[in-house]
């Protein structure tokens, strides 16, 4: 087990109990039960349409759940807007398509939320932003616009933008799926670094190398349910369910 996989505390960061979600009459998530410890890094994988993105989008209330409960950092997610905003400002999120704000410079992308949500003075927010841009290794792009950057650079800016809010939990929704092969590595390196700093991470990805190296736990989902979860070594070398075996043979087979 790598060093990153060691530091996990007993404190519960996210607690999901019996959570169910429907799109209209379509039952997308079924009886999800999941506890995430502080400092834990979880990789969620599964075939497309299995509800893995929906699951992590429920955690910061981008999607509403209809049954069961989600508690993030002790805050119960309900329809109360104040609670939702509180959870969102504590939970960072990176999207498949980066979703940077194209009308703002890289620096402005990173300082916007700290200034307006955390009410941090502009100068201080800019210093923090430069610190995190340095961390993702693109401080020299600070004054450019997102449209001028490559995909990998944009995704690293998106990570820096989330980090500027000093989140306690980071969610990643297929962060490398829209990238060229050459750029996947630079984004994964950034995420590994983040993991080594002890960030609590939930990551939907098909990068199995990343899962082996960083994750404490791999969760396999199919048809809206958690089918199997285990430590990465055990998960990859000794899968229990037939569905998992089939999935692994398909993505690792070539």
């Amino acid at each position, binding site marked *: 087990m790598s060093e990153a996989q060691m530091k996990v505390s007993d404190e519960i960061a996210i607690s999901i109990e019996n959570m169910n979600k429907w799109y209209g009459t379509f039952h997308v998530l079924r009886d999800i039960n999941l506890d995430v410890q502080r400092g834990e890094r979880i990789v969620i994988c599964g075939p497309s349409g299995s509800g893995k993105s929906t699951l992590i989008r429920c955690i910061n209330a*981008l999607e509403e759940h209809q049954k069961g409960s989600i508690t993030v950092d002790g805050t119960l997610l309900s329809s109360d807007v104040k609670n939702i*905003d509180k959870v969102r400002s504590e939970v960072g999120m990176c999207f498949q398509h980066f*979703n940077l*704000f194209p*009308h703002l410079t890289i620096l402005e992308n990173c300082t916007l939320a700290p200034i307006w949500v955390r009410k941090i003075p502009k100068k201080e927010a800019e210093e923090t932003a430069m610190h995190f841009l340095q961390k993702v290794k693109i401080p020299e792009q600070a004054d450019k*616009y997102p*449209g001028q950057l490559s995909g990998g650079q944009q995704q690293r800016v998106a990570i820096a933008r989330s980090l500027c809010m000093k989140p306690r939990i980071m969610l990643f929704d297929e962060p490398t799926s829209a990238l060229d092969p050459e750029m996947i590595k630079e984004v994964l390196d950034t995420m590994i670094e983040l993991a080594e700093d002890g960030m609590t991470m939930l990551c939907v990805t098909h990068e199995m190398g990343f899962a082996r190296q960083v994750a404490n736990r791999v969760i396999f989902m199919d048809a809206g349910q958690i089918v199997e979860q285990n430590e990465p070594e055990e998960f990859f070398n000794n899968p229990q369910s037939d569905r998992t075996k089939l999935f692994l043979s398909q993505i690792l087979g070539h």
Partner: protein
Amino acid sequence: MSDTPNIGFVRHEPIPPSPPPVQQAGVVKWVRENLFSNWVNSILTILSIYFVVKIILASTPWMWNGVWTTSSLRECREVLQGTSGACWSVLAERWNQMLFGFQYPVEAYWRPTLAFVLLLICIAPILFQKLPRNMLIFSAIYPFLAFWLIWGGTLLTPVIVALSLIAGYLAFVKVERLTGFATALLSGVAAVVLVLYLGSFVTSALPEFIALEPVASRDMGGFMLNLILGTVCVSLSIPLGIVLALGRQSNMPIIKGICVVFIEFIRGVPLITLLFVANVVLSYFFPPGTNLDLILRVIIMITLFSAAYIAEVIRGGLAALPRGQYEAADSLGLDYPQAMRLIILPQALKISIPGIVNVAVGLFKDTTLVSVISMFDLVGMIRGPISSSTAWTGIYWELYLFAILLFFVVCYGISQYSQWLERQLRTDHH
């Protein structure tokens, strides 16, 4: 073949950049590609040049020979002696009437003229981000100043209106911190009404305090009226349109319902009927004795009309934004007003610029419709007092060409500005 060529290849020196061939660049290429690319296009080009030259040759003498100094159409004809020539004298003689209408007091012409010059200074910082931002203070004062200059009366009236708005804003900000948006809005409105009510005692007590000679709304006319209606209605209908567009996207059914019904109703009715309503019908809805100013009624109707169109244009811009932008804003913890103001609207409005400008240009030209409810705007002046005066009966070309020129200058200017703005706001592919 016995000896297969070696397919291995390695480049050691990069190819240096070089200019394109002369035949493929510059004027020669442009002419060849656009005017004479094949024989059909060549014939069309030659025909077009022929007609353009013909029109210029026919109209130039008419314009050039024009008479500027006579005092009636009959005198023009005597001077021209049957040769082709325009009778520009009507423009010279009725210049002030076409700009200010026929009832605006002559000795007060400087007031709307000054207001117009100040208008240019007022809109400059709004249109050009690079100008110093503290010029916006003047832009905020300008509407009240312009009202005082054009309508006259005591300076206290616009000052009190301005104070009431400031009071309303302060009340809104204070209350919003303590409670919600809705109560804050109500208390803001209450503060405005209260200050206006108290202020009315002050103005009636001191009607001569720094007063200009008052001019009634029915005495406004000419191109000035078009400009007043155009600028006021455009600047009011854009914010109203934004509110309507956001309202139409709202999750709250009542707000959404009101906005949908309003927009669909206004869009389903011709502007001219709304103007007739403003002119005739609206007064039935007010208690007897109240007399809402005619220009104010017309401004309300044109504003509502164009706001409905602008709302739909902006809704298109909002719909064109990827969902990811809303989600990214949400995931950072921005609340609804922040997300709209900082993320969604700047991008949606940028997409909507061509549509908004389209509506604004249309609106400005539609201000000439007020001539059918017997207001004497530029077209109203031409159709009414000027054409029907004994000296100028039967003169059309010169007057309408002048009107065309004025409207064209303004509308073309707006259009050029919007294209420049689109280029300024483009942040990709530098």
